[in-house]
């Protein structure tokens, strides 16, 4: 299966989440690249900062969805990790692909549903093998 990471920019995904598309932040890019690289990819993952994302309305937990033109839904989990937020609450992170193999989401779940206190650096993530 080929996973195409090319980002098409449209509002179709954006409209579902009532937030504006924006460029990927450096800290998000670093986290994604690190997690995918640790998930047994053989070569470094290149993800440009021009990549467009929208913030998911998850109560400030930090989840983003990658903007694409076509309708799509969850396909598979690519990588999983976790870390402890500054308040001691565990946070689970997954990188999801859509049903066509494209990069879909960076999903954060802070287990008490509270907002993130501290955005993790890659070295803080405890990678979980799948």
């Amino acid at each position, binding site marked *: *299966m*080929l*996973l*195409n*990471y*090319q*980002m098409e920019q449209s509002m179709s995904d954006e409209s579902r989440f009532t937030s504006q598309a924006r460029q990927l932040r450096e800290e998000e890019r670093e986290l994604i690249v690190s997690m*995918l690289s640790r*998930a*047994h*990819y*053989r*070569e470094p*993952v*290149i*993800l*440009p900062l021009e990549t467009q994302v929208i913030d*998911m*309305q*998850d*109560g400030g937990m930090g*989840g983003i969805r990658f903007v694409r033109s076509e309708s799509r*839904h*969850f396909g*598979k*989990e*690519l990588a*999983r990790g*976790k870390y402890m937020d500054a308040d001691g609450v*565990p946070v*689970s992170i*997954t990188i*999801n692909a859509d049903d066509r*193999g494209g990069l879909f989401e960076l*999903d954060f*779940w*802070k*287990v*008490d*549903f*509270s907002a993130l206190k501290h955005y993790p650096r890659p070295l803080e993530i405890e990678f*979980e*093998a*799948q």
Partner: protein
Amino acid sequence: MAGGPLDEITVPGGAKLGFWGGGSIGWLYGMINCRTGSAGGGGGSGSGGGSSKSKIRFGSNANQEYHTFRHVGEAGIDKKAAEDAIRADLAPKADSMPEGLTSGEVRVAGKTLRYNAFKLPDGTINVGRITVH
């Protein structure tokens, strides 16, 4: 992880990256893999469900509940049926579950839903991630 690359990705630069795919979801604090044949009654929204004393939550507000169930809705599965099935799956084991992370599976509308839950010290069980397979 044993085995060869099962998948490949193509990044904007054109490079292909091998990926050793895997289907299972692992959690450090324990894993519960249960299957139910269909969605069943498990208590109403915001309640514990079944005879369990534990409270089962899918978010702290409506936005977060929508977020938790987003993959369910996008797959065309009824949110209430999914919620009922997960509550029914959790209720019998909620009181005996250890604190921490747990995962489970239910079958709804012919699809497998995998969920992740976290039991807090006060017994509350937060279900925060549901994926459709």
